């Protein structure tokens, strides 16, 4: 058996890192556990470097059960970046609101590992394992503030709905296995091409769309996300919005484009409807929200709708669009949530009304919030605009109505984003004392700010990287 371990460098490194963090946490006296966060960040940075250096080392393991290609590497980079930013930006929040728990860091690492495994999955078992490693880690993380009833409740809801969606996904996978007789995605594609639309396969596809729709929080499978987003500790919310969503999209593409491209005509329209509903409902329901985390939750539902557009297209350009959007979405979301966390540290509130005068109390935070929100809305010259351009250009032919809906809804989204801006910038603060954020959070905010702007103005290199990665997608 020829098993090339060098392909698994990223995974193994992360695994070792996660275990080491855990063991260190077990061994270290509680006073010195504070350094674990920095250790985790440094380790993840190292892993990121390894991934990038190892970029060209690509291939398949075990007859296509595990795929290490540019597509997977690109997403790995996204996850690692997100994990680093999330941990780095939230030292103080974790210290103050969650407590000095070493499990937090190793669980984040394991959640990231789950995502990493997930995007590399070439067969259903690997897919499922990665997905569950991620989901289970996230359940723990969501319920992490276990002294806070809200967090527990969110954890319970997330657990139940995640388990249910896993079950539905699995049922779909089992039906696909029944219809095609294989669980390796590449072979599934061949079987689908040969066999066409078997009723069993179609039912399986419906289940898969529903199950993974839960994971990406697409309407009508979105009910969990506002509650969970609100209840979870803010850094976790941010990681959930970024990592879990991106990973689910990655695997959604892998399955539907890698496996079921042969029956594209059967699933394209339902997915398009799902995308349209997500954009519509997500944006409209976000308008009356008064809690910023809930608002961001609904907005992230809408973002899921935008990203789904790339799936509808089912082309290389669509994949590229999804990857590009996922990458920039990381920075926008993490930036916004880091601000939310930093502000919560000071004022102990997530209500939008309490953000009054933020522009004067913490100019950087307010600016980052502004830029990130507008990037999500797709206002040029921020990254979100380019992302939307890439995404929507893919469906101009055939789904023009989706383009209209998407762009108009994204302009509608400006309405509720601007309400936050309004509160932050117009009002004078009740308490004018400046909000201290800590150097790590400041640095994170700065990184997200700069990246969001730079990606919007000069997206060329990233686009080309995504392009290369997308090209590797269909090689299997």
């Amino acid at each position, binding site marked *: 058996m020829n098993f090339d371990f060098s392909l698994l460098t990223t995974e193994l490194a992360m695994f070792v890192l996660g275990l080491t963090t855990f063991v260190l946490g077990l061994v270290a006296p509680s006073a010195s556990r504070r350094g674990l966060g920095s250790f985790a960040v440094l380790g993840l940075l190292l892993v990121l470097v390894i991934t990038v250096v190892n970029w060209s080392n690509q291939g398949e393991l075990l007859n296509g059960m595990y795929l290490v290609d540019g597509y997977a590497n690109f997403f790995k980079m996204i996850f690692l970046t997100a994990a680093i930013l999330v941990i780095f930006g939230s030292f103080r929040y974790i210290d103050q609101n969650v407590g000095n728990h070493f499990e937090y860091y190793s669980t984040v690492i394991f959640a990231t590992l789950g995502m990493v495994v997930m995007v590399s999955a070439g067969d259903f078992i690997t897919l499922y394992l990665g997905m569950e490693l991620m989901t289970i880690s996230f359940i723990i993380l969501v319920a992490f503030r276990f002294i806070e009833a809200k967090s527990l409740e969110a954890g319970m809801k997330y657990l139940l709905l995640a388990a249910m969606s896993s079950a539905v996904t699995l049922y779909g996978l089992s039906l696909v296995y029944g219809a095609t007789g294989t669980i390796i995605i590449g072979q599934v594609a061949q079987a689908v091409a040969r066999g066409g639309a078997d009723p069993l396969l179609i039912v399986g596809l419906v289940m898969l769309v529903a199950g993974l729709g839960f994971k990406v929080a697409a309407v009508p499978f979105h009910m969990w996300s506002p509650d969970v987003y609100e209840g979870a500790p803010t850094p976790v919310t941010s990681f959930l919005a970024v990592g879990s969503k991106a990973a689910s999209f990655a695997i959604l593409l892998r399955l539907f484009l890698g496996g079921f491209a042969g029956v594209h005509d059967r699933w394209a329209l339902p997915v398009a409807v799902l995308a349209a509903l997500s954009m519509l409902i997500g944006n409209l329901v976000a308008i009356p929200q008064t809690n910023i985390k809930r608002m961001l939750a609904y907005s992230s539902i809408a973002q899921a709708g935008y990203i789904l557009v790339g799936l509808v297209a089912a082309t290389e350009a669509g994949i*590229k669009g999804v990857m590009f959007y996922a990458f920039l979405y990381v920075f926008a979301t993490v930036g916004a949530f880091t601000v939310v966390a930093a502000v919560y540290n000071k004022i102990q509130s997530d209500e939008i009304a309490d953000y009054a005068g933020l*522009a*004067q109390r913490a100019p950087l935070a307010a600016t980052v919030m*502004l830029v990130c929100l*507008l990037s999500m809305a797709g*206002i*040029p*010259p921020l990254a979100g*605009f*380019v992302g939307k*351009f*890439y995404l*929507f*250009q893919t469906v*101009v*032919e055939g789904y*023009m109505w989706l*383009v*209209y809906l998407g*762009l*108009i809804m*994204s*302009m*509608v989204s*400006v*309405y509720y984003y*601007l309400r936050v*801006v*309004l509160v932050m*910038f*117009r009002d004078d603060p009740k308490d004018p004392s400046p909000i201290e954020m800590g150097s790590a959070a400041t640095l994170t905010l700065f990184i997200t700010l700069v990246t969001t702007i730079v990606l*919007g*103005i*000069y*997206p*060329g290199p990233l*686009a*080309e990287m995504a*392009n290369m990665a997308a090209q590797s997608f269909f090689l299997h």
Partner: protein
Amino acid sequence: MNIPVLTLTLLAPIIAALIIVFIPKEEEKLCKWVAALGTGVALALSLYVYFGYDQSVGGLQWVDFGRPVPWIRDLGVSYYMAVDGLSLPMLLLTNLIGFAAVFASWNVSHRAKELMIYLLVLIAGVMGTFIAQDLFIFLLFYEVVVIPIYIMVIIWGSSKRVTKEYAGMKLTIYLLIGSAFLLVGVIATFVESVAITGTPNMSFEGLARVAFPEEFQIYMFGLMLLGFGSLLSMWPFHSWSPDGYAGAPTAVSMIHAGVLKKIGGYGLIRVAIFVLPLGAKFWAPWIAVLGVIGVAYAAMGALAQKDLKYLVGYSSVSHMGYVLLGVASLGVIGVNGAVANMFAHGVMAALFFSMIGFIYEKTHTRWIPDLGGLSHQAPRCRWDS
């Protein structure tokens, strides 16, 4: 041309804004001076460009770096900054008004530092739209301007008939929804051009060379008309304009009425004439009709106003109707007229608004009946208009 003059012109206000970020907010005067310096440099450079432009040759000149610099390869976007007869007056206008706007807000003391930053970003954004010769870069700058305006309206705006929040939001949503249609049009045009030529190219020149089918052009031009039209406050998409002006602080009103609206006309001419001529031909009568309605309707609306700002706001809507008429002629003379009108109205409207600002500053009213006998108390105000 080794020195990228246009880029420098664009960067001057941005650099000034960055410098102001690091000035403590107590140093108001310093902020204002830096802003004035930034816009002053930009104005000087644009004058240099204006007089350096060889009118006998025409066409695109002052190309930065001598050629389009590839920017985003897979979208065919290039960093292509240049001016031609169309953008040159607009560039000059922008910097003129920008420079004036800084001084128009010289006496603002409420959060002056932030005001200057937004103002400079706004000026840079507007300037960018006029000198970008690439549709994508044009779009990048196109919407940069909306958000600073919104923030400036909600912070420094004044509430009379409608609240400043309402005015700001109305303005923003109108412009953004309009731009959504514009975006759809641009994306579809881009995709179609790739489908026809096989290579992505987003520069106006490149797109102009593509022979789009007529039906497609008509469709797309309709979308772009919606987008640019709402920015130009074309009837019936004009109602944000008087409210917005009334709510906005002086500097914003100046820039908005003076140059921002002109982006609509400018874009319409660029896209209409250069990229989608057949579509333009189809829509020209409609544009003309809408323009006439706008002229008449807004003029009558202006007659009924008692608030100075509303008066000027409606009059500017009316003026834009003339611009539309010029565009609709699709001829060289008509377009020349449109551009000339835009320049003239730009200067004039900016002057109007700045004057209203001064009057308001001194009298704390914009209500026309209250201002009886103004020419005696402030004789120099008579000279205007």
